[in-house]
């Protein structure tokens, strides 16, 4: 097992799957996620609009994820609240019309991202997210956001990982829920051409 970061000689293959059986021997080490992958993922693949992928290195599955169509909506009361001072004013001028033009944005939700417990701490998760961003930039230019509900329990939290990947919370933590909604703005492709 030689897969390490910063080695462009290692190729990771991204392959869409329809059959969750290929993940029979895949374990990420987080019990709730492993239970989901092995007992419920197949019905999720069958019954949702999500596309599920595995990431392979030399034929071994090192990660898996699902992508779903999503929409990021901003509350329309905000404009009024900001103007009357009930909400914090933006740092840019109110006269910039684009600031309030759109309230709904196309997004792709990263529904699940799990890295094999044998391949953690090698930068694979962050690489997978960056590759997903790249794919969306090329194939869906109208999509401006990648969203995620970061998993958090008293014993495990993915929030720090997603923050490292430049995701930002879009809500305050809700004590009764084991996820936190986060988003990442997708910069246009032109910034990545060099």
């Amino acid at each position, binding site marked *: 097992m030689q897969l390490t*970061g*910063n*080695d*462009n000689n*290692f*190729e*990771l*293959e*991204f*392959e*869409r799957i329809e059959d969750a059986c290929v993940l029979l021997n895949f374990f990420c080490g987080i019990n*709730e*996620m492993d239970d*989901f992958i092995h007992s*419920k993922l197949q019905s999720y693949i069958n019954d949702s609009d999500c596309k599920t992928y595995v990431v392979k290195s030399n034929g071994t599955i090192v990660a898996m994820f699902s992508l779903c169509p999503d*929409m*990021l*909506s*901003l*509350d329309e*009361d*905000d404009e009024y*609240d*900001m103007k009357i001072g009930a*909400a*914090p004013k*933006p*740092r*840019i001028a109110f006269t*910039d019309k*684009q*600031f*309030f033009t*759109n*309230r709904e*944005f196309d997004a792709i939700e990263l529904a*699940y991202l799990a890295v094999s417990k044998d391949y953690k701490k090698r*930068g*694979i998760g*962050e*690489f997978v997210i*960056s*590759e997903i*961003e*790249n*794919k969306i930039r090329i194939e869906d230019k109208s999509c*401006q956001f990648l969203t995620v*509900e970061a998993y958090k329990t008293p014993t495990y939290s993915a929030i720090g990982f997603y923050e490292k990947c*430049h995701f*930002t*919370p*879009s*809500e305050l933590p809700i004590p009764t829920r*084991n*996820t936190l909604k986060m988003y990442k*703005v997708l*910069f246009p492709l032109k*910034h*990545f051409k*060099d």
Partner: protein
Amino acid sequence: MLGFETQKVPIRGDFAKEIREKIFRVNTEKLNKSDKSEIVRTKKVLKRFAANWK
């Protein structure tokens, strides 16, 4: 997440303001220092491995 559908509600307050500001910066190409460092970091991460989408 894990098959649970959480309610989709519009993003409000400071969270919405941050999103509007960032979208404005991206659309008008007025990126700030943090935006630029995010792009640099992503470029660096993309060089870790080669990727092949099948």
